[in-house]
């Protein structure tokens, strides 16, 4: 079974049930959305899947391998990468370094290699740099590679976060409100970018978004959360016409 599968996942914080009986499937190359009013448990769902919080109940699989209860870095290496709602870049590192950090695996970090600086060290360095530049170019950030990340314009910061997530070689990419704070023009570009990433990198994308137009137009399937409960799953049309969803967003029907 390929892709990310969550089965009956719950997460409680003390008495509060932030997420209950949450099930999900994101296959490779799929675009799946997660929506819901504020405080519905969307980011909690992300945090549980990426290992920030272990689930209180339920199971999570990636390509058939069980991943729940593992550490954040383990899950990332397994193939799930994410961005954050409030951008979390490595602010004082360069744009390029932000991306190349994602390439780092233990083989590259050997102490003797680092200290002796044999030609191989420089070869690997050049290779990493070239890969980083290629990735930045793909996302249209190559021109600002040498800039300090925190000086990037807002939209570029969002894009750099996606680039960094892609650098870790994910199978599934989780985007937490990628369009937050963007103007309509930027949102159109973002939509193109998300589709482009899905096609180019063959990743499954699972995104949280508040912008309905964006979600409805790019997602193939949508899950709707309210108070931690899944109230609807389906295609954008099905979800849009679901009375429970309308109620959750607009309040009780009169």
């Amino acid at each position, binding site marked *: 079974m390929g892709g990310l599968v969550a089965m009956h996942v719950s997460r409680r914080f003390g008495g509060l049930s932030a997420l209950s009986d949450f099930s999900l499937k994101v296959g490779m190359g799929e675009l799946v959305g997660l929506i819901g009013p504020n405080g519905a448990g969307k980011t909690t769902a992300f945090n549980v899947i990426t290992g920030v919080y272990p689930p209180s109940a339920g199971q999570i699989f990636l390509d058939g391998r069980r991943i729940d209860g593992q550490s954040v*870095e383990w899950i990332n290496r397994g193939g799930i990468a994410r961005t954050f709602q409030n951008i979390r870049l490595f602010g*004082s590192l360069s744009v390029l370094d932000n991306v190349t*950090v994602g390439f780092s695996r233990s083989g590259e970090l050997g102490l003797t290699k680092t200290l002796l600086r044999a030609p191989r060290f420089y070869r690997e360095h050049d290779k990493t740099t070239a*890969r*980083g530049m290629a990735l930045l170019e793909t996302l249209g950030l190559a021109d600002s590679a040498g800039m300090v990340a925190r000086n990037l314009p807002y939209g570029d910061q969002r*894009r750099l976060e996606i680039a960094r997530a892609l650098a870790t070689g994910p199978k599934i990419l989780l985007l937490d409100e990628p369009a937050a704070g963007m103007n309509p023009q930027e949102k159109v570009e973002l939509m193109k970018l998300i589709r482009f990433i899905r096609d180019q990198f063959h990743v499954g994308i699972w995104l949280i978004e508040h912008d309905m137009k964006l979600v409805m137009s790019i997602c193939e399937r949508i899950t709707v959360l309210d108070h931690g409960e899944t109230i609807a799953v389906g295609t954008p049309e099905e979800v849009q016409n679901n009375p429970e969803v309308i109620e959750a967003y607009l309040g009780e029907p009169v």
Partner: protein
Amino acid sequence: MSPKRSDQLPPPAQSSSPSAGAAGRTDARAPEHHDPAPSRWPGLSSLKANAWVPLAIVLLVPLAAFVESDVVGRYNARIVTLIGYNVILAVSLQLINGVSGQFSLGHVGFMAVGAYLAAYPAKTYANNFADPAAVLLFYLALGVVVGIMGAVLYGLLRLAGLFKRVHRSLPGVALLVLIIWFAVDISRAASATDAGLAVPKWCVWSHGMGGLQDLFDAIQAHGASAAAAISGHLPAAIAGPVCFIVLLIGAGCCAAGAGFVVGLPALRLRGDYLAIATLGMAEIIRISIMNSRPLGGALGLTGIPRYTNLVWLYGCVVLTVLFVWRVTYSARGRVIMAVREDEIAASAVGINTTRQKVTAFVFGAFFAGVAGALFALNEYSITPTRFTLDRSIEVVVMVTLGGLGSITGAVLAAIVLTILPEALRSVAEYRMIIYSSLLIVIMLARPQGLMGTRELPSPKALFGRWWGSRKGVTA
């Protein structure tokens, strides 16, 4: 915009699978059409200041020998010595405070560990630097004893971990401790030799520690003749330097071990809390030494044989700077800095943040230990009062004044802040007032420190103009 570039791209389809393994992924996304000179791109590791190393050795070491030969006078030579210690301490603390961003106030604790664990074997076992094997044996015995202690503790912790939650595991741990307690007691009671001891029989820790002490003594006693034989084979001219190097590395490793033990729990804390934890740790080390009879207690260790001279000292300075530089400006340094910038994001890109923080801490502690060993083997006597909080703060000031994250800054600040109080001696009682005012002025004028996060450019970049280099200056 980016999507338009799709036609120029290599198909990255296979590359996005992390299970392909690091080797398979290495050049998966590197496109063929790319410019084959990637190092002109800006990035951390494009800072290659390697050419400074031969330059430093060529200049610094003969200079040290010159100063050592007493041409400049004892007083000036003394200042140069102090600069040497301070550069090592500041640069190694830069790795912890600046690069990994973990604010430590306990650097001098590691220096104390290094100083005492170099002074003690140098005095007791080294036979005036003629017996390196005996010193090595000391460190091995220490390692074995500490290893056993650590293994037992680790086992207990792992067992506690099996119970998932601490409060639930407490009964299990208590039971285990009781079992060990009884087992040790029964075996000790069975051996007749203990019969006359005044130590209460039920005290498991005294017996446990006593057992380890016995083990240590036994290793020393059994190994002494073999060590002497091995050392006897070494030519006298080599035995001295070998013994000294063994002492430096051994003391460094002891400090690194202390750094590991302290860092593993302490690095879970952040900011102020970590600073206080490390401060407390340094005090624990100092007070333990003060109450340790073999280490001389409050009176300190005296009659330590001297071996350090300025050539050795500045050799170590060059090695320390080289080590820290290479660790900082490499893939590993980039990862450590990423942890400094944002721990949550760092773990989300697959970095084991605890491991990277502890690594930086252990490396820093190692060099603090080396500095301590150099110090102890230069001063004839050391006391715990040499390793108080003031000393830690002095080093922290150097690192901060130099610029957090800049190795050049740490070196510069160590030099300036060692010379400054001495240069101000002529104004006697106003000395410390002027010194502290100057510190405030410097920090007001340059809040990011003397160097900020910048470093000395490579010699080629600095002098490329005059060398008529045709290539890019940063190469």
